[in-house]
C-alpha cells in the first residue's frame, strides 16, 4: 500500500517540524507549505489524503479562507478534486476555556472536519489523523 500523503499548511516551521516527526515515524508522507497561497497550490498539484491547516497565519483568518477555497461549491473551482480531502484545523485555544470551535456546532459555516489545539500533543495528532483517514477510506 502506498504511503498516505499529508499536507501541512502552517507558517510556523517549528510547529510543522513538531508534527512532521511523529507523522513520518508512523509512515505518513508529509509535504508542507508555509502560507495559504502555497498551500492551495500544493493541494491542487499533489492531491493529498489529508490537509492539516493552521487557522492563523499572516492574518487571523487566513486558514478559514484556505478551507473555504478548498470546499468551494463553484462549478469552475480550481480545487474541485480537493473537495473531499479531510481537513484538520489547528487552533490556539486554551484548554481551560474549552473548545472555541467544534465541528458539530460550527460545521455549517466552517468547512473542516476536526480540530486540534496548539501545543500539539503527538498522541492526539496521530489519533485524529488516523480517524480522519479511516473515515475517508
Amino acid at each position, binding site marked *: 500500500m502506498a504511503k498516505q500523503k499529508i499536507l501541512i499548511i502552517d507558517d510556523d516551521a*517549528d*510547529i510543522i517540524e513538531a508534527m512532521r*516527526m*511523529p507523522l513520518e515515524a508512523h509512515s505518513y508522507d508529509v509535504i508542507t507549505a508555509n502560507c495559504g497561497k502555497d498551500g492551495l497550490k500544493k493541494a491542487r498539484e499533489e492531491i493529498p489524503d489529508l490537509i492539516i491547516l493552521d487557522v492563523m497565519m499572516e492574518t487571523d483568518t487566513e486558514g478559514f479562507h484556505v478551507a473555504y477555497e478548498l470546499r468551494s461549491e463553484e462549478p469552475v473551482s480550481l480545487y474541485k478534486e480537493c473537495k473531499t480531502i479531510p481537513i484538520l484545523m489547528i487552533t490556539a485555544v*486554551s484548554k481551560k476555556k*474549552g473548545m472555541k470551535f467544534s465541528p458539530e456546532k460550527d460545521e455549517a459555516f466552517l468547512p473542516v472536519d476536526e480540530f486540534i489545539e496548539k501545543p500539539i500533543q503527538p498522541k492526539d495528532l496521530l489519533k485524529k489523523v488516523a480517524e480522519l483517514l479511516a473515515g475517508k477510506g
Partner: protein
Amino acid sequence: MPQNANSHAKHYTHTPGKTSLEKELIESLSRFITFRWIMAGGIGTTVLFVTFALSITLPLQSILITTLCILIFNFFCTSYQKHVKSYETFANLQISADWLALVFLAHYTGGIESPVICYFIFHVIISAILLSKKKCYLQTTFALLLILILSMLEYFHIIPHVQVKELFPTPSYDKSLYLVAVLFFCVTSFYISAYLATSVNNRLRKRENEVVALKDSVTEAYNRLEALDREKSEFTFKVTHELRSPLSAIQSLLKSIEEGYAGEIPQKARNLILRSEKRTGLLIALVNDLLDLVSGKIGTIREGEIKHININEAINNSIQLLQEKAKAKEIKIAFESMQKPVFIRVIPEDLDLILTNLIDNAIKYSKKASSILIRSVVTEKTVTMEISDIGIGIGEEDIKRIFEEFYRADNAKEFELEGTGLGLSIVKNLMNRYKGSITVQSKLGEKTTFFVSFPV
C-alpha cells in the same frame, strides 16, 4: 449660591460650550423670572386685601394696570429666555424694567412716603448676584435717580401726589427736610447693600471658579490615566499574544522529542525534557490567562456577539468540560438546576470563561473525594450562580485580596503549587463588563461559596 446638582447637569446638556459663569447666570435669570411671577401675584393680592379688607384708599386701577404690565413683561421674558444672545444685557433690561415698575408702584402708594421704597433693596441684591460689580453700582445709581426724579416731580407738583390718608394723615412729601432725610437713607442703604452683596458674591464666584478648575483638572487627569491604562492593557495583550506562538512551538517540539520521535533519548535527558515541558506548560497557562484577563479589560462588547444563553446549559457544558479533572480527584459535581430554563444576555465565551474558572478553582481547592455543589437562583432583578466546595477555605484577610491580579493566598499556594493567580481577576473583570457582581463566603478550612450575579 446653592445649586442643585440636577439642574446643573441639565443645564450642562442644554447649553454646551458655555462657561460655568454663564451657566450660573442663565440659571439665576430663570429663578429671577420665577421670583417676578410671585412678586406680581403678591402685589395683586396685597393691594386687593389692603383695599377691601383694610379699607385703605388706593388708586386700585393704576396699581392693577402696573401689575398687569409686570405680568405681560414677565411673560415675554419667559418666552424670550431661550433665544437670548447676551444674558448680561437681558439681566440689565429686566432689572431696569423692574425699577421702573417699582417707581410706578411707589408713586401710586404715596411716593416718597410709600413703604414700597424698601423693596428697591431686593433688586440691589439681585443685580449684585446677576451682574458685574460695576454694573451693579450703575443699576443702583439708576434706581436712586428714579427715586430722586419721582420725589422731585411730586415735590414741585409736576405730577400729582397720592396721599394714603389711612397711613399718613399729614403729607410729608413736600417737606424738604423729610425729603433730604429719606433720600440720604436711600442712598446710604442702597450703596452699602450693593457693596456687601457684590463682595460676598465675588468671593463665592471666585471660590466656585476654583472648584470648577479643580474639577476640570481632576477629570482630565482621570481621563489621561484611563487612556494610559488602556494603552498598557493593549500593549500587554500584544506582547502576550506574541509569546503564545513560540511557546506553543517549543511545547510541541518538546513533546515530540519526549515521545521519542527524534530518536531514542536517555532517561536522564527525558526527565529534563519533562521538566522543561512542565515549565513551558505553566507559561502557556499564564499567557492564556493574561490574554483572557486583558481582553476582558480592553474588549468592548459588540452587540452581535451577545446571545441569549440558557444558563443551565452553560453550567452543564462547563461541568462536562471539567469532569475528567474532577474524576481524577474523585470529586462529585452536583448541579441543582431550575425547572425552567433561564436565559441571560451574554457573550457565550465570556460565560464559559466565568464558569470554567470558578468550577476549575473549586476542583483545584477541594478535598479529595468531596463534592461540589452548583446552584442557580433567580430573583426579579438578578440571576445568581452559586458554586460551593468543601476544601481549604479562604482566610478573612485573603478574602479581601483574592480578586487582585496575581494574588494567591498562602494556603492555596501550599495546597496547589501551580496557579497564575489570575483566574478570579478574569472573572471579576468579566462580571464588571456585564454590570454583574461576584462575592464569596468562606472561612479558613471550611466551605467556600462563590456567588456570581447577572442583572436581568
